[in-house]
């Protein structure tokens, strides 16, 4: 589904990703771990198409299509979803209205008829239940005045509504207490199917207790330096990132 080859990315002239390779197939959950500054969030942003990230080399294929020239909204319409580390507030726009617009745009892109209001509402209700989000929150302006946990939950709710093929979770666990973490993780687990894929970006192992990955990759200094099964996460947790730093002394993170 996602094929990243030799990806090189710079931000304001500084090279962040230095030849990253990653393949994610449908039905899989991949975790990306790494110390601060390794390029984790850059990877998330560049997949989503954030402008200030300049691709200087390599390619990103999504379902066989090179998406590096697509605008962020086109990528979303192709089925890429990013759960933001810091979700943005949009005052005066209710989450329902926001999602209605998003769903219509995505459907139009795919040549589908607009959804009927009653079908949309039914879907809204179903997904609210699925990810256990307070109906109060969805009636309020997008993320405005939400707590950190509420914002993250709203991201998962939006993911549920938009049914992406690939969901990138950028440090979704940051700032969450253990209960909120569990609710968010449960939501993600319920959304896992054989057809979609997840890229879970995290600094800590604990999220992976709840969202069990098929593969774990260690990102260090702009490259994936180690890949393995879920046990790799536990090993990392035990030995700490210094272990990686010692193993790759030539790199400076």
């Amino acid at each position, binding site marked *: 589904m996602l094929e990243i080859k030799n990806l090189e990315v710079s931000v304001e002239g500084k090279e962040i990703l230095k030849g990253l390779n990653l393949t994610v197939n449908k039905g899989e959950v991949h975790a990306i771990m790494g110390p601060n500054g390794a390029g984790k969030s850059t990877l998330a942003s560049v997949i*989503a198409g954030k402008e200030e990230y300049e691709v200087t080399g390599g390619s990103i294929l999504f379902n066989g299509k090179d998406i590096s020239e697509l605008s962020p*909204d086109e990528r979303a319409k192709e089925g890429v979803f990013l759960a933001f580390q810091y979700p943005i*507030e949009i005052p005066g726009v209710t989450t329902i209205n*926001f999602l209605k617009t998003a769903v219509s745009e995505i459907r139009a892109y795919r040549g589908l008829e607009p959804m009927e209001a009653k079908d949309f509402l039914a879907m809204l209700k179903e997904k609210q239940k699925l990810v256990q989000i307070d109906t109060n929150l969805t009636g309020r302006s997008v993320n405005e005045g939400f707590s950190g946990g509420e914002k993250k939950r709203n991201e998962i709710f939006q993911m549920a509504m938009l049914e992406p093929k690939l969901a990138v979770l950028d440090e979704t666990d940051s700032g969450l207490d253990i209960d909120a973490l569990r609710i968010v993780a449960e939501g993600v687990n319920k959304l896992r199917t054989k057809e979609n894929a997840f890229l879970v970006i995290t600094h800590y192992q604990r999220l992976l207790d709840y969202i069990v990955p098929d593969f774990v990759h260690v990102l260090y200094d702009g490259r994936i330096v180690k890949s393995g099964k879920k046990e790799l996460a536990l090993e990392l947790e035990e030995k700490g990132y210094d272990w990686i730093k010692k193993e790759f002394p030539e790199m400076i993170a």
Partner: protein
Amino acid sequence: MAGSDKILEEVTSSDYKYGFTSDIDTEIAPPGLNEDVVRFISAKKEEPEWMLEWRLKAYKHWLTLKEPHWAHLKYPDINYQAISYYAAPKKQKVLNSLDEVDPELLRTFDKLGISLQEQMRLSGVAVDAVIDSVSVKTTFKEKLGELGIIFCSFSEAVKEHPDLVKKYVGSVVPVGDNYFAALNSAVFSDGSFCYIPKGVRCPMELSTYFRINSAGTGQFERTLIVADEGSYVSYLEGCTAPMRDENQLHAAVVEIVAHKDAEVKYSTVQNWYPGDKEGKGGIYNFVTKRGICLGNNSKISWTQVETGSAITWKYPSVILKGDNSVGEFYSIAVTNNMQQADTGTKMTHIGKNTKSTIVSKGISAGKSNNSYRGLVRINKGASKARNFSQCDSLLMGDRCGAHTFPYIEIHDKSAIVEHEATTSKIGEDQIFYCNQRGIDTEKAIGLIVNGYCREVLNKLPMEFAVEAQKLLAVSLEGSVG
């Protein structure tokens, strides 16, 4: 960042969508203003002597006044002698049905997305269509007549209801009130008149579409709305103007009188030609709008969505004379490219327990300048008066300006006055967040701006709110982008 600037540039520099001229036969007065021109206008309109006297008085007063320049606006001097003060579509006879209306005129409305037929059939709105100063068609008049409601062109009111006009015209905005109001009083071409009798709740939104349609013609509309005791009316005004090279002056006057227990809601969507991207052309809009809450427990509410005009100078105000009366001002002002707006309100509290609310949302894009100017005045004896003001500014790009000039004068110790102001920039982060959900930048901006304006849009009657939302998106297409 360079990429997003480009988007902003593209969005803010889109062309005016309603730029076209319809080919209607007009009769135009030669340029210039003097006593003879005032007499000519009055004669053209077959006015009684008292109306002419009133105009002449205004004209003489106008000669003693100087054009005001205190607003945060820059524009070349206006040559008042180069303007023609009268233009009317040639009209052979009184029209009985839409079939008799000039088809070209109807097509003009269609281009604007305003179909009289549709309006009549679907929304139950009575439309008094004013094109180049003469009222062309008034609908639903009979239906309103059964309730004793008078809704007609100003000229017709002068002939048919002289006592009412005589009693109220100039009672809220006196002939000598200000330079532009005096000019209007001397040369006003036409406009609308509305009277709601005691205890009557007007069953439909009353609506007027104004449109400038003759090159080099100033437009001087005059509207008078009188709500008698315990009555209610919601009045809608909307404008779009065709593309023109030279600047066009517009100086309208609107007066509202609300008697005891009466309520008047006045909503405007203004989309006059704003000039091109370089600031060439566009309407100069100098408007005096004022209402008086004459009786106790009366209420006047102004809601405006201002997206057009090269220059906007406009302060819809309320004089809160009756005890417990309420004044409201909800405003969205959008400026793009080279547009300039200096707009706001005046709330004058005279009666006891009077309350006023001001919510102003300014949006600046391109190289435009957008100013809020408001005065809250609490007179001595206006005990327990309350005001709440909120003035928000939204900037798009880094070449535009937003300014706030709030004036507060309090002469009574029991008053409670609150003022809040914010300035924000439309965030790249917000746009990216929308993009990431599959919403393109243009739509994202529309969504964000409509969200920002929601408090005001909510105050508009339903059918107008939809139009206003569209207009916001069109005005900022690109622009704010």
